[in-house]
């Protein structure tokens, strides 16, 4: 430019702030750990806290003095936090974070157990583990259904409806045929029915996916509630006494201490859930179907230019998701309870939370579901020992955790890029 003198432009250096993700997590953990050591240590009673490896107070147990335990585990959490803060161990981030969180929880438990009413100063670990898995079951199935949908670009807020429809159809068909297997098949179809509506309206008619999901949830609540009152309530013998799957003891595995009785004496749904996590994880990342599914959820235009049939794949996966979630619903009515109105009660939305918290991966969803299941089980346990901690606040934990995750305060959560966007050829 003729009129201006050329200045040397110093490029603004890209300053990576001191407070990166690891340091923030470390600082948080450090603070929580110190707080736990001090507060829980002061609050803890003189009793011995026992963690029994059984379903009751009997048998082998880890024992630790309440105060010592609370302080010790609190300090452990603090140490893990300090290590993260010092950036000594970036490579061990996940591990340290895990150690820190476990330390915090144990410190908390030491306090709680030591101040429990006399005679109840123990926590039956087997019970806790089994309960955690049991409560996590519908979440796992629901979240897996969500993974299939959302990985191929269809937002699934209808998980609740799919679970409910599955539970209902399983109970109805199971009772009427007297066969658990027929019930299971019907449950899969029930879930798929909701999926079919979701797929047709969102993929073909381009109705907003979230809107449709919400409406379908209400439809499922109404439909099952109506038929429940008309059929099941008036004649439970004929319509609502489905046979239940018994528990299957897996040889050898069932003899593993703690894990054996907790996990390998379960019912078909537990094994199926764990199997599905592995299968779907493997399929998603190791097979042609998985590659195409993920491409359709991330960049459908690119997939289309390479000859992948985008819409067909979406249809297929959404239906499959319904089948899986439907089976998840049957884990209630074909193994534990008989059908009651609105029996899923929001589990579908926790499954959605698990899906997000687990970063749209099957194994992540499993871990998230277990975490949420544990929070649930812990709430029940604390209620049983008359804890001062209100169970409602523990029940809020999954939802709070998800909000924090989505806000980017806990790690980075990234949905499939094309999630929720209808695909239209230009």
């Amino acid at each position, binding site marked *: 430019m003729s009129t201006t003198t050329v200045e040397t432009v110093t490029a603004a250096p890209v300053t990576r702030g001191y407070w990166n993700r690891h340091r923030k997590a470390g600082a948080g953990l450090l603070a929580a750990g110190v707080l736990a050591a001090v507060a829980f240590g002061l609050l803890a009673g003189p009793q011995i806290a026992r963690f029994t490896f059984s379903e009751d107070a009997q048998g082998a147990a880890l024992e630790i003095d309440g105060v010592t335990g609370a302080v010790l585990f609190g300090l452990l959490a603090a140490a893990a936090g300090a290590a993260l803060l010092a950036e000594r161990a970036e490579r061990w981030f996940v591990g340290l974070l895990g150690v820190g969180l476990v330390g915090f929880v144990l410190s908390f438990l030491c306090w709680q157990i030591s101040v429990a009413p006399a005679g109840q100063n123990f926590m039956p670990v087997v019970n806790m583990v089994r309960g955690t898995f049991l409560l996590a079951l519908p979440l796992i199935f629901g979240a897996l259904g969500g993974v299939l949908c959302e990985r191929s670009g269809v937002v699934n807020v209808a998980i609740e409806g799919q679970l409910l429809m599955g539970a209902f159809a399983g109970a109805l068909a199971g009772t009427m045929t007297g066969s658990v297997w027929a019930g299971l098949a019907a449950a899969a179809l029930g879930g798929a029915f909701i999926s079919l509506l979701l797929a047709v309206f969102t993929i073909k008619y381009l109705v907003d996916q979230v809107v449709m999901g919400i409406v379908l949830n209400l439809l499922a609540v109404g439909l099952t509630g109506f038929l429940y009152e008309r059929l099941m309530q008036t004649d439970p013998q004929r319509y609502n006494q489905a046979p239940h799957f018994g528990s299957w003891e897996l040889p050898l595995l069932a003899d593993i201490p703690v894990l054996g009785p907790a996990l390998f004496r379960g019912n078909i749904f537990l094994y199926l859930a764990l199997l599905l996590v592995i299968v779907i994880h493997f399929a998603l990342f190791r097979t042609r179907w998985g590659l*195409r599914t993920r491409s359709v959820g991330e960049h459908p235009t690119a997939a289309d230019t*390479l000859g992948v049939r985008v819409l067909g794949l979406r249809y297929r996966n959404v239906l499959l998701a319904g089948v899986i979630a439907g089976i998840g619903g049957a884990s209630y009515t074909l193994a534990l309870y008989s059908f009651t109105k609105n029996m899923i009660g929001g589990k579908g939305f926790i499954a959605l939370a698990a899906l997000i918290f687990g970063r749209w991966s099957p194994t992540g969803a499993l871990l998230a579901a277990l975490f949420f299941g544990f929070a649930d089980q812990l709430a029940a346990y604390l209620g049983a020992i008359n804890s001062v901690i209100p169970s409602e606040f523990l029940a809020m934990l999954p939802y709070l955790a998800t909000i924090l995750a989505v806000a980017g305060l806990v790690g980075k959560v990234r949905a499939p890029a094309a999630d929720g966007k209808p695909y239209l050829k230009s």
Partner: protein
Amino acid sequence: MEPGEIHALLGENGAGKSTLMNVLYGLLQPDAGEILIDGAPTKIRSPRGAIRAGIGMVHQHFMLVPVFTVVENIMLGAERVRGGLLGLLDQRRARAEIVEVSQRYGLQVDPDAVVEDLPVGVQQRVEIVKALTRDVELLILDEPTAVLTPQETDELLDVMRSLKAVGKSIVFITHKLGEVKAIADRITVIRRGRTVGTASPDASREELAAMMVGRNVSLTVRKGPARPGEPVLEVSGLVVEDDRQCRVVDGVDLTVRAGEILGIAGVQGNGQTELVEAIMGLRPALAGTVTLAGRRIDGQSPKKVLRAGVGYIPEDRSVDGLVKEFTVAENLVLDTYDLPPYASRLALRPAAIAQAAAARIAEYDVRTPSADAPVGTLSGGNQQKVIVARELSRPLKLLVAAQPTRGVDVGSIEFIHDRIVQERDAGTAVLLVSSELDEVIGLADRVAVMYRGRIIAVISPDTPYEEIGLLMAGCSVDGDGAETADARGSEESA
């Protein structure tokens, strides 16, 4: 096209090059005409069909899944599988093929890298490898050098030569003369959707530039000489990044005076969009200052910038300029709705808005069924007039007009041009950005040529046409044709 030929399609932006190639690749369907492959008419209905016919394409916007690895991206749609129905991905075989192809043609790619972590040049290599593993005979490269550094461009040209050596045909779409001369066997020049001629690479740059930009449409702008006053807009050392954190405005200095039109000429994608957005407060500046009549306006909100007396005609009216669902009247007050007389405190005053709308519609000759018609139902030219009417009806110190006549009919173009000149004569400083060289030359009092994020020359609009064309293509005016501008061109910032 013949086997082993590199055929360059040369033309300005919007000339129809990409559309033509999208038809060839089956992404768009032709309205008329036919495609001959090996002498036989062939219908290509989908990309799948194109791949089957041996046609591969590297799109201007890469068709790569960012979170996938290179292997996954290349495999997609043509997966190597084992295990029969299970369809297990055979990554090892795919990787071996990729390594083989990349070695054969000298295209270095790391098969296990995640695509979004790769620099743009390498991503392009991945696209080429992707096409080559599908055994294409004809490869279409759509503006492949638009995003490359000079070094990467040289590498790409080498790759093209080696592809040619093994008998592959290449269609090379570009608007850069130097590259065309360096590599093409044959050149077809396209302008406004028509072939204007073919040339051999021996043709001089001046000839090619003339063919490319054309002179046949003479838009006469009635305007007297400018009477420049005090500097109104001063930009110095401005550095701006685009959405992908690439430094696309790299130290721009500009001055626009009251009562003059400064036109920025340049091929699109050289940082003009980001420059304008940074001035308007829509995009943060990493460094540098923007002052309006002596007051800093960088770092201010768009509202503050507008209220400081800046009018803005955004380049994409349907995205940034208008709310299509809103009525004409509402769009006419889109940035003044909360000021008197259109609002008193929190309430809108529909009567005042309607009154103003009627006046503007008459004054600017907006053809609309009524002021209450949704603006989306108007023709492109009338939509643009709504924006111009809105912006020029406020007292302005500076008017920033980006592509003010894109997609607008000839009658409206003339009208809008007249209005801009009137605004200049009223003492407003005007910053005009246009990729239509005719428009810049016709309207501007001074022309700044922007290339790769920098202003490489400020010249008079009377400069010979070919010379400006060369500058836009990144060649220095007085050089011997070597692309000296590239030498100080942008490095990809980290």
